[in-house]
């Protein structure tokens, strides 16, 4: 176990090292922007995976944690003019509180009930946001609601990269900030998975009744896994808001939820690297099909289906069986 942990830490180091060299290739702003976006998605999916994959709590409303984090940052930036750096702890806290709500709502639920109830919570947050139209602040001629409603929030400040690095290099700042967020997210995942906490989570997933009878307080560890994931998912939401410059209820829409969920399942849930691999693969597919215009969604869905139909454990599971298959004849010979 200790060697596995060192191996994963080493891979993380290499991975972050390689990614951090990417801007040196002279990527266009578009490519850098898209990579930044997907790095943030990977950070979110890694944390989601702790709950969904490692602890086996089938929460698909996880984006609610992301959303409250993003809104915390955007609202603090907007109403208090705070530097977005100072809003990040608040984003983490917001993610934590929302995660505890999720944990409480799902304590006694199993399987598909968890799926639908977590979805219902995300949809409730969504509905409350989009129907929030009461006048809260007035600018010149327009009236804005507290949360920005369906429009979402924008012009709430940024991380200051534009002043620091100039217009043309600001995306670099965003890129590296996102990369740090991803590294942090994966690091947390590694530390958790290989600690007694991670073992308790896996035990709960594998056999909940047995885990309880071995002294693992199920609800406590459900709450803990939600809390850990909530802190870092909320934080990612805050970073995302600052990097993208706008934040709205769209992150809670079903297509977004399922897009991120498919990253995890395609990569291989419950593994450290599955979410990352899934994000990379689906990002490439999505971008690769951009030229198909009206048929892009179809092509994406078709490829997604083929991967899921052929690889029950996702790509990481596929790699594992491939390696087993490749190694086994040599042993015999």
């Amino acid at each position, binding site marked *: 176990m200790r060697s596995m942990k060192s191996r994963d830490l080493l891979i993380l180091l290499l991975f972050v090292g390689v990614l951090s060299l990417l801007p040196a290739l002279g990527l266009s702003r578009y490519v850098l922007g898209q990579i930044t976006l997907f790095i943030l998605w990977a950070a979110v999916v890694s944390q989601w995976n702790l709950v969904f994959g490692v602890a086996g709590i*089938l929460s*698909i409303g996880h984006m609610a944690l992301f959303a409250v984090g993003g809104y915390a940052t955007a609202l603090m930036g907007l109403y208090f003019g705070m530097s977005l750096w100072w809003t990040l702890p608040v984003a983490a806290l917001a993610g934590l509180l929302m995660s505890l709500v999720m944990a*409480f*709502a799902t*304590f*006694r*639920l*199993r*399987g*598909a*009930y968890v*799926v*639908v*109830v977590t*979805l*219902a*919570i995300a*949809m*409730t947050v969504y*509905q*409350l946001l989009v*129907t929030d139209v009461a006048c809260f602040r007035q600018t010149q001629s327009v009236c804005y609601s507290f949360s920005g409603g369906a429009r979402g929030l924008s012009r709430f400040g940024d991380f200051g990269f534009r002043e620091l690095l100039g217009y043309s290099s600001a995306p670099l700042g965003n890129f590296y900030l996102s990369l740090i967020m991803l590294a942090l997210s994966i690091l947390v995942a590694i530390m958790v998975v290989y600690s007694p906490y991670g073992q308790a989570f896996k035990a709960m997933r594998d*056999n909940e*009744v*047995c885990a309880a009878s071995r002294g693992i307080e199920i609800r406590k560890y459900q709450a803990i896994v939600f809390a850990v994931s909530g802190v870092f998912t909320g934080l990612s939401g805050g970073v995302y808001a600052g990097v993208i410059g706008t934040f709205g209820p769209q992150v809670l829409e*079903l297509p977004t939820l*399922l897009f991120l*969920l*498919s990253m995890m*399942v395609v990569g291989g*849930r419950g593994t450290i690297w599955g979410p990352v691999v899934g994000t990379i693969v689906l990002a490439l597919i999505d971008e690769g099909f951009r030229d198909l215009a*009206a*048929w892009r*969604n*179809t092509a*994406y*869905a*078709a490829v*997604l*289906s083929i991967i*899921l*139909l052929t690889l*029950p*454990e996702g790509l990481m599971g596929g790699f594992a069986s491939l390696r087993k298959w490749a190694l086994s004849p040599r042993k015999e010979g």
Partner: protein
Amino acid sequence: MELLTGILTSTIALGAIYAASSVSLALLWGSISMLNLAHGALIVIGAYGSVAVVTGLGLPWWTGLLGGMIAGAAGGLLLYVSQVRWIFGKANFDLRIIILTMAFSTIVVDLINNLIGAKILRQPFQVEGRFVLGALSIGHQTLLVVCCSALMVLLLQLVVHKTNLGRLIRAVSQDITAARLNGVPVQAVIFQVMVLAGIISGASGVLLTSSTTVYPGAGFDPLLKALIVCVLGGLGSIPGALAASFALAGLETTVQYTLGVKWGFPVSLLVVVLVLVYRPTGLFGRQELERN
């Protein structure tokens, strides 16, 4: 009094629609533990089937329902052939099918967008007029939808409880391994269940869009509502889905009339979450004896 009749008629109309659209979801969950996110796609396929038959072929309006059922059956068949038969009973079926059916509906919506067009169409399965009795005033269309939904649910109950197929479905839903060992042709049963679910979803698509409109994304909202209804009723329980349909419709309408329309959906969602916190298997869910 006017408020009360308003709430009552709205509840009946809304409840019937919820019931029609959620029973097929309940059927699939109850029989083969499949959370079918392509339910919305089947609804849309049914809605367009009706348009094709009535507006396209120029047949009388009431054939729309048949058109919707046929199109829905084709949709269910396609879902079976392209996805379910390959992974049913394999590892992670429950999870993979969620994303696969989501992919299926993406493709369906895209195909409609690109081949038929994103234009909004009128559902031709319509009747004019109102039924008035004192203070009570109900549109014929509402009555039609309520009657068709009731008939559909009744027929489904007959199929499940009185036919040979129903017996096999119940055998499969109770214990798949045992059913297989006892010579039940499991794949054939699943195939028929999928087609049956397709027919019901297709028909409910026609009923749903008769009070709204037909467009490629018309199935999304009903899918969400049906999921909530099924969970509240207890997943897989058809009577539960029925009861939950009317309970939810009543709650939603009452909130809309009293608190305001915008609170209708969020409040009912919250209530569902709270109900499940105290009754983890829904109103009519099977309380399973956990054994290790």
